[in-house]
């Protein structure tokens, strides 16, 4: 281990995050390696290590000969301070080598509030932030993850973005990179070529012009770059890579368990949900294969916990069959099996009861809206009676707490909808009174609300986020309505980060200056209250002459050129507009299995048929 690092580590909190050497970490002989990849996650080790996408890419890349993928996370403030003081450059955990010496540096972008960490990590690596200031071919800075469906605020910093699922395209662009390196291409030559690979968006090959009012006038591709870049998917989940052998951290991380990915996509079509649109079409894994993967992953990891993951596990067609098989394996070994993302229906509750024979975890439902009218408008096809029935089952079975998640500020929301949340919570309380076997124990009903952030590539991409004062008013309205209910706790999400998310999720590339200014003034770890400073962001917007409200609180015209017009998730704009119109009529759209609504994502599959 590097001597400087050894001298630093005793001074920082949780040093095991910075050492590498975990079980299953891949160490290759550098003499056999021609391409080195630093897989970076712009947040702490504990969060980054929990990311399933990174586990997949890490395993997949390291299966390749001559390619070595290593990990790198954002050091916490105390570590950063020591690194800067000692002049220690940001290094990859496996080798301890500075990532600036690598061929490719790849960031996973899952949430906007991590953007400043990308800049900070580039700076800690000793690299210029802007792509234009890095004239050499190496290191290439690439990024993937759901934020890349509108990566514009990061456009000047990142050389290219990867849209969609990375299993295939990662190996394709690495192959091209190897050719480029061997044939001594310039960075420009490489970027022009890589833009021809489907799913790769090279921001420097697009010129953006603006109208006087600040909206985008046109996005013009150059050097043969495609006008639309459509995301990539894995067609057949049964043939796709599954990370049976994953790194088992030597210190605790957020999701410290086996993660079994049942399927990708979601049949529901909730109109606010970016994941619901962006991961289409639905593709399931075979239950036999899943059971096999799950068991093998438990044996390899020694984990005593397994979780089934997907956007809506109840919609997995063979859920019972899979759970039965997994339970036969897990129960005698005391391995806990957990199933988040369940719908609040009777089927799910029966399943929960079977799974949680031993440990009764918390019960969380996300009705999202307080009235049936608004739930219909956002196409959250959850009936009140289903939710209450689920609660009855849970309370009869001995659960004594339930969490309910809602959003405030959804399009078409009225005060009646806000107060409907309080009514619903009270009805849940009534269910408890009727069903609990033990009233003396009491009940804890938690209502949480967040401030709705309209996302690109959703039916609400045209809509405004309600103003902050209005959000606060609705919070107060609900708080007052719940004041006298002692068994109901009300939590609301701090509005400041939601405002910034609303700005950056639908922002254009002019916001890059805001990011850089905020970073220069100390912004990093903006999703952590320890570091977040709202005023710093307001100052940065002002310094750059931009208005946050323009991005967050403005209703867009039907035909406005969006900053995210080039990236495509495969769902047509017409379909999204139609969904928006249905919302304003409070009309629902049936799920994909009941009836195809013609969103356009079927074109990804052979024969154009989704079968999920």
């Amino acid at each position, binding site marked *: *281990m590097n001597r400087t690092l*050894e*001298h630093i*580590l*005793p001074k920082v909190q*949780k*040093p*095991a995050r*910075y*050492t*590498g*050497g*975990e*079980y299953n*970490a891949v160490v290759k002989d550098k003499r056999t390696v021609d391409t080195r990849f630093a897989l970076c996650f712009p947040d702490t080790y504990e969060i980054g290590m929990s990311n399933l996408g990174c586990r997949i890419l890490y395993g997949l890349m390291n299966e390749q000969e001559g390619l070595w993928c290593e990990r790198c996370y954002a050091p916490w403030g105390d570590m950063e301070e020591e690194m800067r003081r000692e002049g220690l450059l940001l290094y990859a955990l496996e080798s301890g080598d500075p990532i600036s010496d690598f061929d490719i540096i790849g960031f996973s972008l899952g949430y906007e509030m991590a953007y400043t960490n990308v800049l900070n990590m580039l700076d800690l690596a000793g690299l210029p932030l802007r792509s234009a200031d890095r004239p050499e071919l190496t290191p290439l800075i690439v990024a993937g993850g759901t934020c890349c469906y509108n990566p514009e605020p990061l456009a000047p910093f990142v050389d290219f973005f990867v849209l969609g699922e990375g299993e295939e395209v990662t190996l394709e662009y690495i192959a091209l990179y190897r050719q480029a390196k061997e044939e001594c291409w310039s960075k420009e030559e490489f970027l022009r070529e890589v833009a021809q690979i489907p799913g790769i968006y090279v921001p420097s090959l697009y010129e953006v012009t603006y109208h006087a009012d600040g909206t985008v006038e046109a996005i013009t591709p150059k050097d043969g770059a495609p006008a639309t870049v459509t995301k990539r998917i894995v067609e057949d989940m049964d043939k796709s890579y599954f990370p049976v052998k994953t790194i*088992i951290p*030597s*210190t*605790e991380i957020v999701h410290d368990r086996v993660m079994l990915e049942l399927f990708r996509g979601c049949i529901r079509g909730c109109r606010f949900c970016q994941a619901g649109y962006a991961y289409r079409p639905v593709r399931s894994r075979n239950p036999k294969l899943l059971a096999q993967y799950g068991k093998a992953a438990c*044996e*390899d*990891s*020694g*984990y*005593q916990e397994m979780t089934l993951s997907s956007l809506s596990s109840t919609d997995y067609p063979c859920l019972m069959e899979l759970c039965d098989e997994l339970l036969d394996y897990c129960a005698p070994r*005391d391995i806990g099996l957990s199933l988040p993302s369940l719908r609040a229906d009777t089927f799910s509750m029966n399943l929960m009861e079977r799974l949680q024979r031993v*440990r009764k975890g918390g019960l969380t439902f996300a009705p999202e809206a307080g009235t049936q009218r608004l739930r219909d408008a956002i196409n959250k096809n959850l009936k009140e009676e289903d939710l209450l029935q689920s609660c009855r089952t849970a309370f009869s079975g001995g659960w004594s707490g339930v969490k309910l998640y809602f959003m405030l500020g959804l399009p078409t929301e009225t005060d009646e909808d806000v107060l409907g949340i309080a009514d619903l919570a009270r009805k849940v309380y009534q269910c408890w009174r009727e069903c609990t076997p033990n009233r003396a124990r009491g009940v804890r009903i938690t209502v949480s609300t967040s401030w709705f952030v309209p996302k690109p590539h959703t039916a609400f991409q045209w809509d405004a986020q309600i103003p902050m004062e209005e959000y606060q008013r609705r919070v107060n309205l609900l708080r007052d309505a719940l004041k006298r209910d002692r068994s109901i706790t009300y939590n609301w999400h701090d509005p400041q980060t939601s405002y910034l998310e609303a700005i950056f999720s639908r922002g254009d590339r002019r916001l890059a200056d805001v990011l850089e200014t905020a970073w220069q003034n100390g912004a990093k770890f903006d999703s952590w209250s320890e570091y977040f400073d709202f005023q710093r962001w307001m100052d940065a917007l002002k310094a750059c002459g931009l208005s946050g409200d323009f991005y967050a609180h403005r209703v867009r015209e039907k035909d406005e050129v969006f900053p995210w017009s080039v990236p495509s998730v495969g769902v047509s704009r017409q379909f999204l507009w139609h969904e928006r119109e249905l919302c304003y009529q409070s009309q629902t759209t049936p799920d994909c299995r009941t009836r195809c609504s013609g969103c356009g994502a079927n074109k990804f599959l052979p024969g154009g048929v989704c079968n999920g």
Partner: protein
Amino acid sequence: MADRLLFSKTGRAKYISHLDLMRTFQRAFTRAGIEIKHTQGFHKHPFVSIALPLSVGYSSQCEILEFGLVGGATAEEVPARLTAAMPEGIIIHQCYPAERKLKELAFVNYIINFEYSEGRPQASEPAMQELLSRESLVMQKKSNKSKKGYTEVDLIPLIRGFNLECQSDTLTLDAVLCAQNPGLNPELIRAAFCQAYPEYAPDFVTFHRREVLDIDGNPFR
């Protein structure tokens, strides 16, 4: 009857904390297919216990872990199988039935290296000699039990013996310290030295456990 492991923890594994190490062992037993005793009760979990918790950042070649071997491997097979299931830096040397009580573990032999990147000051050695030869050396020690937040401890009676060795840029203290009831954390020796002789304060200090000993000074197993 309990079983014991003798293992070392060096290199990158130095930074794994005590609690994380316990969890790592529990998982490693499962990975290696070694069945061990579980605690009884509502939430059953694999039983492992480490004799003397090691501070984060210290290395050791003589750690002792107690557990109960149920099956899946013979005692002879355990070291190799378990080492293969461990993170880098943890090596299992022996697996054997416990024959002595843990409270018979009386002393720990530490190798404490004082590093001077600009070269070791000549007078650092006599300074350390002087310090450790005092009649008494009282230091404040953090304590959760005391109202003041610290207690006072005299280091001298807890140091059974020591030996000093010098190189051009290091001063090595080879010391035998009381292990438990009460034990002495060698960090206090470093702190006392830096307090008494701030001009000879080293740039960096490493701590290594070389051996655990019984009351007669023989290796404890």
